[in-house]
């Protein structure tokens, strides 16, 4: 992103706070005027002191008194105005950052699985943390510094020219040299600091990977080798740091040396002008102060480019996400009828982006309200894709999915997801209490409802085992549940909603069959009259369903009741036989 397009994107955000932002900028200009007036006033004082006709003490006091008073006033005014202006601008930066964070969070929640496959969580976190911080720096720091730079240079040079244009010209001779070095070193330092940041990331990744695999490392007696590898990375990181430090120290040494050239010009040419009577002693000393004032903007001019570049890249990375359109968009005029949960697939096909093969191909079937359908198929047969289509996490490429005879696209997304509940295979639990996790969709649910669904999901003994029961906190800072317990908790989270359509995506894989039987029986009772769809690998599970859909490579290969399917040759019967076979022993 160029600096210009960065500004264009950020403009609306800044303009929302136009008054404080531009007011602050105006204040900074005024503060610079006060600041530059101080050496000018000092000059008056020194000239009074140095005047050859030594006046009486009284006269001097009369002259110096008001000057000192005005200086004090200027300093005070400068401080007050600077403080207020800076706060106004930095505040704008903070608020814009908060606005953006809010917008980003909102936007991310609207994204679908394709988006999240493209952007890993770590990447998104980096954008939300580091890149928004860069945007804030750009608004509160870089743009402010740029303005101050321009103001200081303009005001300072004006005062200097007012005092002596000859000396001003002479003093400014080394300025290009300073800007050149500043620019060169800003680039070098930027690159070097990127290298150290990469080095740090490298080091962190190495330690993390190593500790994650510590069991293997120790089991294979690889500790010493890993330590050696770490040592070389550690050394490289130290070297990179020192190299970075060398560069920043070098520019810190070069700058005062070049500035000393200007000082020598003031001394040499200035004292010549003084002796020639062109300038007063006060002017001579004032130039030292102005030089100090100007040195900063000249020096910063080089690094400001890098700062803008950094800010622009951060802004671009934030907007890359904000510009990403949500995959699923509601249609206008949505409907909200009461739903019973009957499903119909009409020639539905789906292909993942950049894939030739269909994940689901021309699939047609229907499930009447209140019935249970089992979906059976091998890994990669399209079972999970089918389920995701039903909750509009994915949109079919062709065909139509009807829920209660209405295309699911006609329902608003929140309404659809309220009525269709999908329990995922991978049970993700939040770092919240167990009860809070079960009642995740609506924290106001009663304790009773939570316990009923926990009972159905065979989680009650788990809850009873914890001294704090439903209030037991899960996650890193709390209790870690076993795979089976997690799966049952996720199941309870789905059951509690009593949605017209419940979809279970292989939710029993970590649950033993005895418990599974119990849960299925409970579900049958609880969900009498409601529609249920479940994916399973086990014939013993599928048998519980009213009808069974057998998928292979995205296509329907069989559909019917267990009894009917058992009479037909095909995948289902093979499967059942294979499972039977293991019951009776091999061959």
């Amino acid at each position, binding site marked *: 992103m160029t600096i210009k397009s960065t500004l264009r994107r950020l403009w609306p955000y800044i303009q929302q706070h136009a008054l404080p932002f531009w007011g602050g900028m105006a204040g900074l200009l005024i503060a610079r005027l006060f600041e530059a007036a101080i050496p000018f006033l000092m000059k008056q004082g020194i000239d009074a002191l140095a005047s050859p006709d030594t006046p009486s003490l009284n006269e001097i006091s009369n002259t110096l008194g008001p000057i000192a008073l005005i200086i004090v006033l200027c300093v005070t005014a400068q401080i007050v105005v600077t403080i207020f202006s800076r706060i106004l601008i930095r505040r704008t930066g903070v608020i814009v950052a*908060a606005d953006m964070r809010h917008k980003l969070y909102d936007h991310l929640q609207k994204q679908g699985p394709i988006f999240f496959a493209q952007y890993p969580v770590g990447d998104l*976190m980096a954008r939300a943390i580091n890149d928004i911080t860069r945007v804030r720096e750009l608004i509160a720091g870089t743009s402010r510094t740029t303005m101050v730079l321009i103001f200081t240079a303009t005001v300072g040079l004006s005062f200097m020219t007012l005092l002596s244009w000859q000396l001003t010209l002479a003093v400014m001779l080394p300025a290009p040299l300073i800007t050149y070095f500043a620019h060169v070193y800003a680039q070098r330092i930027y690159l070097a600091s990127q290298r150290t940041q990469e080095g740090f990331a490298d*080091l962190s990744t190495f330690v993390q990977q190593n500790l*994650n695999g510590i069991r293997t490392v120790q089991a294979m007696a690889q500790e010493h080798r890993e330590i050696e590898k770490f040592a070389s990375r550690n050394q490289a990181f130290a070297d990179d740091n020192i190299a970075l430090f060398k560069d920043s120290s070098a520019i810190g040494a070069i700058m005062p*040396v070049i500035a000393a050239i200007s000082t020598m010009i003031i001394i040499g040419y200035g004292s010549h002008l003084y002796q020639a009577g062109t300038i007063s002693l006060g002017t001579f000393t004032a130039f030292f102060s102005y030089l100090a004032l100007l040195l900063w903007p000249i020096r910063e001019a080089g690094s400001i480019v890098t700062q803008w570049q950094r800010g622009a890249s951060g802004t671009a990375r934030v907007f890359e996400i904000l510009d990403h359109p949500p995959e699923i968009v509601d249609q206008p005029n949505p409907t909200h009828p009461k739903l019973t949960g009957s499903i119909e697939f009409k020639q539905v096909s789906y292909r993942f982006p950049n894939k030739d093969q269909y994940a689901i191909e021309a699939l047609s079937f229907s499930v009447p309200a209140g019935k249970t359908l089992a979906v059976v198929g091998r890994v990669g047969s399209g079972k999970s894709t089918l389920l995701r289509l039903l909750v509009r996490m994915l949109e079919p490429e062709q065909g139509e999915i009807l829920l209660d005879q209405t295309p699911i696209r006609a329902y608003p997304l929140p309404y659809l997801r309220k009525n269709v509940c999908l329990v995922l295979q991978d049970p993700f639990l939040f770092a919240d209490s167990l009860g809070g996790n079960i009642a995740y969709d609506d924290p106001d649910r009663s304790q009773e409802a939570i316990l009923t669904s926990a009972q159905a999901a065979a989680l009650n003994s788990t809850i009873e085992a914890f001294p704090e029961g439903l209030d037991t906190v899960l996650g890193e800072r709390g209790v870690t549940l076993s795979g089976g317990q997690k799966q049952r908790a996720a199941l309870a989270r789905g059951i509690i909603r009593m949605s017209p359509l419940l979809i279970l995506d292989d939710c029993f894989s970590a649950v033993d069959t005895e418990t599974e039987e119990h849960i299925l029986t409970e579900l049958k009772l609880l969900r009498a009259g409601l529609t249920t769809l479940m994916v399973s690998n086990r014939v013993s599970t599928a048998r519980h369903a009213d009808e069974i859909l057998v998928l292979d490579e995205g296509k329907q290969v069989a559909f019917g009741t267990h009894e009917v399917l058992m009479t037909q040759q095909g995948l289902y019967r093979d499967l059942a036989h294979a499972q039977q076979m293991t019951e009776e022993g091999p061959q």
Partner: protein
Amino acid sequence: MTAKKQQSPIDPRQPALRDHGVFDAEISYKAPTLSEFVRLLAWAIPHRQQALYSLILVLFASFLAILLPVIVSRVIIDGLLIQDATLTMPDLGMSSLVASISDRLGLSVLASALLLYGILTLVCHSAYHLHRITLARTVMFALRDLRLALFSHIERLPSTFFDKVAVGRVMTRVTNDVQALFDMLMGIGMLIGEFVPFLIALGLMLAISAELTGYLLIAIPVFAVLTYFFRMATRIVYRQIRTSVSQLNQNLQENLSGIQVVQLSNRERRNLATYQAINDRNQRQEITAVSMETGYGAFMDNMVNMALAAILWIGGGEVIQAQISLGSLILFTQFVDMFIRPIRVLGQQYNVIFRAMASAERIFQALDWDEQLHEPTHPLPLPPRFRGKVEFRDLSFGYEPGLPVIKHFSLTIAPGEKVAIVGPTGSGKSTLIRLLSRSYDFNRNSIFIDDLDLTDLSSDAVRDRIGVVLQDFHIFAGTVLENIQLGDPRISRAAAEQAAAWVNADQFINALPEGFDTLLNERGQNLSQGQRQLLAFARVLVRDPEILILDEATASIDTETEQTIQTALQQLTRGRTSILIAHRLQTIQEADRIVVLKRGELKEVGSHEALMASRGIYYTLNQLQFQTLETLS
């Protein structure tokens, strides 16, 4: 500092109760204590030469830095411009030095002064530059050593430690915490560079005018007190900000990790509101902090200007009364900056030091953690090769006292026998193999290899003779070849390639862009589950261990790869004692014996046929648990 080897083994049945919770505690701010500070500085002792150079250089540079304004004020202004020779103000011999240069080189006084000024500037800033570099070297090398020591220490902590402490908590100690010390140590080093000119300037200023200096000195405690109160106030705000920022990040991270559940539960609006509440709080705190910082910063920035106004006011009178020269007054104004800088820098360092000391405490806590496996004082020598007999003799074990995971387990495995262990989750299968690979301490007389008590052998030696394939194949940063060799010089490239061929891993390896020299990315994302399994086999096979332990991966693998893996597994187990935690029917069926474990107890032992016939637990498990889908077709 490092863990001492335990001489007398503690009864492992009662593991020392350690509070691993200290690793979760968030210490973010801590007052420095002298002992910790000294301990930290001790890491710089090996690099004391650099430190000494740094100190000498800064003293030298500071002295020159003082001379520069003296030349301008005393030599040029007093001596040349107003030719005020009436007063004998200190000039540190600069006037006579300039005069002698002028004599020897035949230059004018002005030219000589300029020449001296130029040379001194160059030398001064070069010295400062070298001072900063030597300082950075000292600090960076000390921290490098510290970081390496810390990593080496953590690397050797036993499994009991990693069972309890989250990886992330340990990781940040090696990375972020050590880095936090850099800022503090550099800051302190630089502070020395600020204080030396401060003291020289103070001496000179006293010599010029004790009265003026006295006024300035009054200002110091005022600024110090102001700074102190300011830091106290900001400390609270910064603590609040740290909390709200980490809440923001945690909230976002969790929300993104569980985004599907969030969306499927219609929680978007509620979660956004929660996030926004934290965001708002954070925004208010940030604005408070920004306002305070800005106010204080502007005040400190302008201290020099305020002091200048005071000096002109008071000092002006003294010039008139001919007590000090005009040049000296100007010199005085120039010194004010040198005088005030260290105070400002000290103020800036305040937060850094408190934060860094918290990091130091975390580092030392980890470094002092002396948890370890109990090694025998005099380990028994190992035979050149085990026959491979493994015996469990009434083995009982628990990770926590009072919670046994393995109960009275006895089993003898003949050399070359292939045993599959099956049982429901939590039955103790994994624990059993972890004990055999000596990852934990357990009672004497419990496990024997070739009739040698495992607790009498050194754990490293045992691990060298036992090949372990864990469920999750860990990829080490490096090439495919390096991942098979693992830096063992005894394993040639040819041997590694041969091993890969035996387990049929060569096909996919040769298909990789650079074959055996392909760099594997750290999580092995460029390899499929099945390929990683094969690579793990090759890694173990090439070491030709007498005993093989395998925790079979449960993940779904496509049929073709499944077949390849089964063939490879047959290769791997041939001729060596194999203990397999099996999840796949075929693996189990090919075992000589099957051991059924339930709640830590051995329930059934026998061949597949025998167990099926007896219709016990194995029969039920088999019927219910094994997913035959993947092995089909």
